[in-house]
């Protein structure tokens, strides 16, 4: 199993958010989690990425034969986990290019691969940016600083395509995107899909799933997955909402 979440319960500030959650993802699969506001979708994404604000009450997570709780935030990233943030943080003064260069080399170092030099990285970054319709001038700016909502999401996908993760978690990447931007972003994701990597897509709406076809759709309500199935569930939610699952 590529990612196995078993009986996971999590709380924050005395509030139980995830309750005995189970989820299995195999290599090469695309899973979508849909759920109403406050159902715990972003908490799951943050717990997977290693955010330290949460208290793990119960359960375990295995990722690529590692106990995920034995790995800190950066080790999870270096092992191939990537979270595309719902609200990417603006970091003035940290330039995009050296930051991403340092990020890719930290991963290569862990994998005992040769570090990528400045020139090769610049070429890689330029070509990936062009694929995503990102203006090269944007790469001279600080991380997410002064970006529009759409630019931030596109930049998340650019980072994903550079880091080429084994498991990418997209936390409401579609929110705040117009239809053209949504198409560019989802095209970027589809280009990255191979039989060796997996995706966990968190969304409220079926629209995103018109562009990225999931193998499985899960409905999350009140911290637990209450129903799993294929794309037909997304269509069901689009038609009737989440009410019937609550």
């Amino acid at each position, binding site marked *: 199993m590529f990612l196995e979440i078993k009986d996971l319960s999590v709380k924050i500030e005395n509030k139980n958010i995830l309750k005995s959650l189970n989820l299995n993802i195999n290599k090469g699969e695309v899973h979508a989690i849909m759920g109403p506001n406050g159902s715990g979708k972003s908490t799951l994404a943050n717990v997977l*990425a*290693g*955010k*330290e604000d949460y208290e793990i009450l119960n359960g375990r997570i295995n990722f690529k034969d590692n106990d995920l709780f034995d790995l*800190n*935030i*950066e080790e*999870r*990233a*270096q092992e191939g986990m*990537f*979270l595309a*943030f719902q609200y*990417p*943080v603006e*970091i*003035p*003064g*940290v330039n995009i290019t050296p*930051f*991403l260069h*340092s*990020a*890719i080399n*930290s*991963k290569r170092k*862990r994998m005992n691969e040769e570090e990528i030099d400045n020139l090769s990285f610049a070429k890689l970054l330029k070509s990936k940016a062009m694929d995503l319709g990102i203006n090269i001038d944007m790469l001279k700016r*600080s*991380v997410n600083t002064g970006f529009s909502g759409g630019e931030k999401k596109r930049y998340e996908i650019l*980072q994903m395509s550079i*880091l080429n993760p084994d498991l990418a978690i997209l936390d409401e990447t579609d929110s705040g995107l117009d239809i053209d931007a949504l198409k560019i972003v989802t095209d970027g994701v589809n280009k990255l899909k191979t039989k060796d990597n997996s995706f966990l897509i968190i969304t409220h709406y079926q629209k995103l799933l018109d562009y990225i076809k999931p193998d499985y759709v899960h409905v999350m309500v009140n911290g637990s997955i209450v129903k799993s199935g294929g794309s037909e569930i997304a269509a069901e939610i689009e038609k009737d909402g989440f009410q019937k699952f609550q």
Partner: protein
Amino acid sequence: MNIQDNYLKNKKNIFFSENKDIETHREKLINIFENDRFDKKNNESLKNINLKNFIDFKYKYLISEETSVINNNHENNYSIVSVNGQCSSFKDDKIEITKILDEDYNDFSKNNTIENNDHFVNLNSLFLNSGFKIIIKKNNNIKIKISNIVTDDDLTIFQKNNYICEEGSSLNLIEEYENKNNSTSNILNVIKLEKNSHLNHFLIQDNSANHNLIITTHSSCKKDTTYTQKVYNFSEGHVRNFHYSELLEANSEADLQGIFFLKDNNTSNNKTFVKHLAEDCKSNQVYKGILNDRSKATYFSNTHVDQVAQKTEGYQLSKGILLSDNASYFSKPELKIYADDVKCSHGSTIGPIDENAIFYLRSRGMSKIAATKILISSFINEELSSIDNEQMSELIQKKLVRYLSKVK
């Protein structure tokens, strides 16, 4: 020893003690200390320090012969080594360096408004034992680098420097303070900018833990002048940087910037006080601090806009990063506006490093310590990237790397 006895005992070594006018003025200052007639609660010069340690001191001063002034033969480039506050005399067609004179003392003491409230300026006037005057002659564009050296332990240096930029002149002034002696330097820089002159003033402070550095600058700007001060404080000992600025005539500008990097039990006191006394003037004050361990800092900024100073622009900003729960930074911005057509603002933000930004960077594979360091560097990136002197920029970067190497 009380302050009067200390003064009388060392009078023969103190500048201008034979001058009756100055003697009378000093008696007034002694009275202030002796009668304890000062506001202790609201006095910025007393924060984070024990004034008693600075008043009840053992006076010691040595004159050194090792001072030098070198014209580097590069175009208008001068290097000065000031030892124990003294500087050799020098004269060419562009600059003139002399000892400080009675009239310079009187000129400052009679005209300034900061004495009585600022005890370190008062101590400087009382125990003055060194200093120099530099005149940049009309229409010259000069670069001066001053290395301030203290030769021995236990020295108490009270130094007054006068800088006069004559009409149409420009001065790029770099001052370095890198001392390892167990000494105290109390320095007052009095700066006068005549019409259409410009001064870029850099101060790099990197003293060891046992060296106290107290610097007070008083700048006065006439018509069409700009005064820029950039202070980089990497010292491990106590540093006080106070700046009093007067924009006397139209279209003058004061741009005051300070960055301090503190750790251990270090303290740093900072103050900027800008008086807008004419129309169409501009001031900008930006102070940033990074504080680790149990270090403490204060920053008081005060912009006073006189009723005649219409079309004033006055901006203040202070920011601080606390790397430890035990570090503290007290910031108090104040605006006093008596004119009605002005643009002024002030702001202050102090807090720990942004945990969301740390999480974001770590989620891309960067270690926590690397993420912390990159965020500290980014916090001051704007100020560091605005340094237009390559040599200075490299020096500051090197000192920043040294500071960051101690951040755990």
